[in-house]
């Protein structure tokens, strides 16, 4: 006791940074590597792809994986699946990230405002959210496509709009719990502005809910985006997009299952990697879980 009482040095060693903590968990490290690879593949698609994504050669149509020069086979138009997947990943990732970032941040903002100004804004914001929630994402997509015409932009907008109410609800719930804690009152007693209070004290303590939902939603958005593409509202052929590729492939499920199955496997891997990384990131960002 007397030995530690007089020391002025920290007794514990300095804490590791976020990255170090992230890499300590094997599943997290693996998902981080996977996500980096996925993003790199999407970004570098033009250099990595062996052929042009629109090059078709009908003589190679529906070649199975492992054929000469086609490690993953070719689709119904005889285009190289590897190329199509790389470019498709690009479009799908961009769509998913844009929709989650756009809809998620707007939804989170609404949630914070609804919780912080519960008295005046809580009711109006949440009724607005209820209204948005009652529209199926597909219907929103249809309406937006009718206004702006089908395309990636419409899909992103529709998916963002569909994400806003969900994020708003989740963030509000989590923010209402935080609002009851004394440190919010302490922050108010220091005389800071509401904006600073929300940004420094309320928002960081709702991060775990935001992270979990954003990563979960990212997977859903990619699937929803492919559904919209399938309806002809999203990526228009011949633009490669993972969901659209899967739906194109369903016509040939019996003759050439790889055309539908391979994009689905890629979607699965992408969604899984982002979900695991999201969980790990949430834990790494929480100072209470730092050891």
């Amino acid at each position, binding site marked *: 006791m007397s030995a530690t009482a007089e020391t002025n040095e920290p007794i514990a060693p300095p804490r590791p940074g976020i990255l170090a903590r992230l890499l300590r968990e094997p599943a997290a490290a693996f998902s981080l590597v996977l996500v980096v690879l996925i993003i790199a593949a999407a970004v570098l698609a033009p250099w990595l792809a062996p052929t042009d994504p629109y090059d078709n050669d009908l003589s190679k149509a529906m070649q199975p994986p492992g054929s000469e020069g086609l490690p993953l086979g070719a689709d119904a138009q005889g285009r190289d699946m590897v190329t199509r997947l790389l470019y498709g990943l690009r479009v799908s990732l961009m769509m998913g990230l844009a929709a989650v970032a756009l809809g998620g941040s707007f939804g989170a903002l609404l949630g914070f405002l609804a919780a912080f100004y519960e008295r005046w804004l809580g009711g109006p914001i949440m009724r607005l959210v209820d209204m948005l929630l009652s529209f199926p994402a597909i219907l929103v997509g249809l309406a937006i496509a009718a206004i702006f015409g089908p395309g990636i932009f419409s899909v992103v907008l529709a998916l963002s709009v569909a994400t806003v109410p969900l994020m708003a609800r989740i963030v509000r719930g989590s923010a209402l719990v935080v609002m009851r804690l004394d*440190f919010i009152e*302490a922050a*108010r007693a*220091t*005389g800071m*502005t509401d904006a600073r209070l929300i940004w420094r004290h309320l928002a960081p303590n709702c991060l775990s809910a935001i992270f979990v939902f954003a990563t979960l939603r990212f997977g859903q958005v990619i699937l929803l985006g492919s559904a919209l593409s399938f309806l002809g509202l999203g990526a228009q052929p011949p633009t490669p997009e993972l969901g659209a590729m899967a739906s194109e492939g369903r016509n040939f499920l019996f003759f050439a299952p790889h055309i539908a199955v391979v994009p689905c496997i890629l979607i699965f891997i992408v969604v899984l990697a982002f979900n695991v990384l999201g969980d790990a990131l949430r834990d790494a960002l929480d100072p209470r879980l730092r050891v």
Partner: protein
Amino acid sequence: MSGPLLEVTGLAKHYPVRKGLILAKQVGTVRAVDGVSFSLDRGETLALVGESGCGKSTTARLVLRLIEPSAGAIRFEGKDVTRVSGAAMRAMRRRMQIVFQDPYASLNPRLTVAETIAEPMQVHGIGNAASRRARVAELLSLVGLRAFHAERYPHEFSGGQRQRIGIARALSVQPDLVVCDEPVSALDVSIQAQVVNLLKDLQRRLGLSYLFIAHDLAVVKHVADRVAVMYLGQIVETGPKRDLFAAPRHPYTRALLAAIPHPDPQRRGQVKPLGGDVPSPMNPPPGCRFHTRCPFAQERCRTEAPALRTLAPGHDVACHFTETLPPAGLDFSGGLSDVAARRLALYADAKARNAA
């Protein structure tokens, strides 16, 4: 500067009670605080005591305007705080700070200790990053922590240490008034003494005024200069600590004092605790609010509400019959009977002889 630092007159907070989902009808009013007046001088500690639910904490938050009062005035250095708003109010907050009851909920778990303590200074534009860092180190040593604690997060500290951090945060902007909302109620008894002594020490060194909310009378006896006893949203007795503890004039104050645990087993059974519960503040009893539980209640108490009357300088009581009450018959001097005292003296002698 003349005049009291803080003067509160007729402070009230009424919460409407609504029923119904869509067209809510007001069916009643909770009178959490109902006409509270007191004043606080520079360097003085006023303790606000009372049972749970009597409105102590609400009063504290009203003074800081964390809750908007329904009525009444709060004058800080003669300026009515209830009238200012916006930036002026935020500037005003620098002068009054608060220490909370729950040391686990009152610190933001996402901020390091240094960030927590420096933030009020940052908000009020005091100093630059370097001077604030120096001030954080200074404050940490002032409250008995070490400079290297600054980079840690709240969850790495014990309850008592967290309370010290909360105190350092309150002091960072050099306030004149610190509202302590049961600052030691959530702590272990051994830690309570440390924190209470720290608060007293800081008061002496920095000339702080404390509005000290508590329900533990032992703590109050130790820290307070003056005591105000609250019952059901109103002050029933206020006076200098010594007078109030030696000669409580209100039946409720007597009951509170009699309920202090006593080390003398001889006294067991002599004190009759108050029966019943605090009536609902939504429907307070007519007349004196305490008459439902008062052992001396008479007809007049049921109909006529007693006003605070000054009995001695600085000693006010709200009771119709305070002059005719039987003597309190409580001994708070040492609390030990003669027999026990003699036994202790013998024991001390024996110990001294052994040591010699």
